[in-house]
């Protein structure tokens, strides 16, 4: 058994169920354009919802950028995540204006309602909570963004109501299917 980085360890982490061919197009376009790593990773995350390790490895193999560097970039920026997220991604703004106007109380309300903290996903995979630095809607603080939609002037109760509404919708959609 070799040290970390040996083949055994690598295969241990790789997930064969991930369809790597989804990246063919973007890799063909960008693999020889230098400085495109972030763009490729952004595309990959959009495709898979997160960055599976096997995808990082595949990108490294295809671009020739060594895997430590790819992993380094993927873990440096807050946009990238290495774990899957729930159906609904809650981005809770923790910027200055939101902080002054009670963002902590909103976080508590989310935790009370869903039982998750920053970075966690609910057991039913419906919600993931991510605290973010600033969504740029400071005059409506406190603010959160769910699936690209911004909700402003939140109170703990309003937050819970919004989450319940989304949960209901998601469940109804599932039943409909």
């Amino acid at each position: 058994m070799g040290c970390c980085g040996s083949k055994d360890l690598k295969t241990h982490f790789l997930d064969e169920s991930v369809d790597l061919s989804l990246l063919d197009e973007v890799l063909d376009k960008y693999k020889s354009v230098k400085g495109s790593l972030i763009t490729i990773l952004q595309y990959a995350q959009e495709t898979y919802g997160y960055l599976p390790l096997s995808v990082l490895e595949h990108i490294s193999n295809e671009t020739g950028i060594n895997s430590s560097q790819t992993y380094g970039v993927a873990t440096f920026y807050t946009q990238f995540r290495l774990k899957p997220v729930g159906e609904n991604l809650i981005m809770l703004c923790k910027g200055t204006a939101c902080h002054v106007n009670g963002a902590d109380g909103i976080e508590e309300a989310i935790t009370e309602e869903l039982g998750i903290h920053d970075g966690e996903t609910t057991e039913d995979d419906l919600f993931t909570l991510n605290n973010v630095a600033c969504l740029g809607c400071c005059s409506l603080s406190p603010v959160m963004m769910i699936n690209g939609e911004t909700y402003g002037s939140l109170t703990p109760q309003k937050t819970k109501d919004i989450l319940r509404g989304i949960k209901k919708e998601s469940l109804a959609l599932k039943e409909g299917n």
Partner: protein
Amino acid sequence: MKVVVGLGSCGIAAGARKVYESLEEHIKSNELKVGLELTGCVGMCHLEPIVDIYDDLGNMERFVKVSHDKATELLTKAMAKDEDIAFKISDVDKEAIDKQVRITIENCGIINPEKLEEYIEKGGYEGLKKCLTEMTPEEVIEEVKESGLRGRGGAGFPTWFKWNAALKEKATPKFMVCNADEGDPGAFMDRAILEGDPHRLLEGMAIGAYAIGAEEGIIYVRAEYPLAIKRLNIAIQQAKEAGYLGKNIFGTDFNLEIRIKAGAGAFVCGEETALIASLEGERGMPRLKPPFPAQKGFWNKPTNINNVETFANIPWIIRKGGSAFAAYGTERSKGTKVFALTGKIKKGGLVEVPMGMPIKDIIYGIGGGILNDKKFKAVQMGGPSGGCIPAHLEDTTVDYESLSKVGAIMGSGGMVVMDESTCMVEMARFFLDFTRKESCGKCIHCRLGTKRLLEILERIVSGDGRDGDIELLESLSVEVKDGSLCGLGQTAPNPVLSTIRFFRDEYEAHIHDKKCPSKACKALITFFIEDNCIGCGMCKRNCPVEAISGEPKLLHLIDQDTCIKCGKCYEVCKFDAITIS
């Protein structure tokens, strides 16, 4: 007749999209001869959704806080010239705009950002045409020099000087980069410009590119601003088709391509060299200066980087002349500046005022004063790199020099107002928590120093502060400043130093008396039920940990050992019977 709905991010969050859709439906189904347009953010975020209705003569009437179910009724009444009409903007709110001088955001909330012709109508691309057909690059730089424009992104470096340095470099190709990675929590003027007047940015960049001799422009924009990216893409496409970008612009031999690069979320990328590293696909870690980006920037080629607001001033300066711009402002801080007024303020939003205006005129004159008429305590300027200006210095004017004298910075123009309920030690902890997370980790003093500063602040707010902690914070702050390579580390201790400077007594109260004067730090406060409790049971029912006991109509009691100090009882009590000490 024309109806314009404000569809900036904040307007949409307030429900403007629904207003737009119901009007669209109404106009279509009734085949009304009414034009419907969207526009960006006019800066009065507290009044969103905003609807402007223009009559056939072009007179505009503004309606605010329009609810989507009443939007069609509003239009019907406006068309019938009914005097009894709801949602009209108040005179006070109208005045708040009249008190401003708008240059950078003059078109925001007025024009449709997705239509090139509306920008052209406002004099768009005239500045670029003038530069390309009548001026040499040196003359363009001279004009910018005369305007006295300084960088609006943070440090306030003279724009002409950077351009001149890049122009003098012989190496090619050169790059013109726009920093649209607005990472400062509490500032959103760049977003407003990107969403509300994207062609203005393109024109500013094109003029700059001509001045330094660049043929490629890159806009590094936050991925958190999807609407801004969408509108920029539309604008770039339109400008290309109209010949304002591409080859042989205005029939000259000047060529320019501009592309967008979506950032991936890192505050440190506001720093020039870190931004360049990120553009090159690497981790956004700052590099040693010199060589400056003007000499060796993107792919080691001469590169100039300015932020969005800086570029947005350029077309105006060229069109109206540098001296017209320099007529506003103070001796060393020329022109106007956009501020994002937020926090405990009645009328939050974007305000653009001449440099040199006293802070109190902005807060009271334009912002309408403190929320719920509480006492003004301090205003935080410059974000995590800035400082808090206390209420007794409210006469301080907003210009680069005056602000740095009181330990704050202009930064990107975030202005977060705080009232008596904001604890300043907690505020310092908040900022250090931010900078610690955002430190890229390259310099030890920044990486570990911010962590240690945060630990000390955390123990102070949780009631475990020790003798000598204030002095320790001060000396460590100086070391972090000295030992860091880039602006992030060099300014990270500013919130600590500035709060110690003006609110030392609050630190002392936390450490020595174990009290939080603002009654904000949970570990240092206790909730009591006073004798005027009528025993309604409201607090008891709402307490999440069942810490409150008492029979109906009798005085209730809080069990202090069980209480988690969530403050729910305090919020729900209708008789002010619960006090905090």
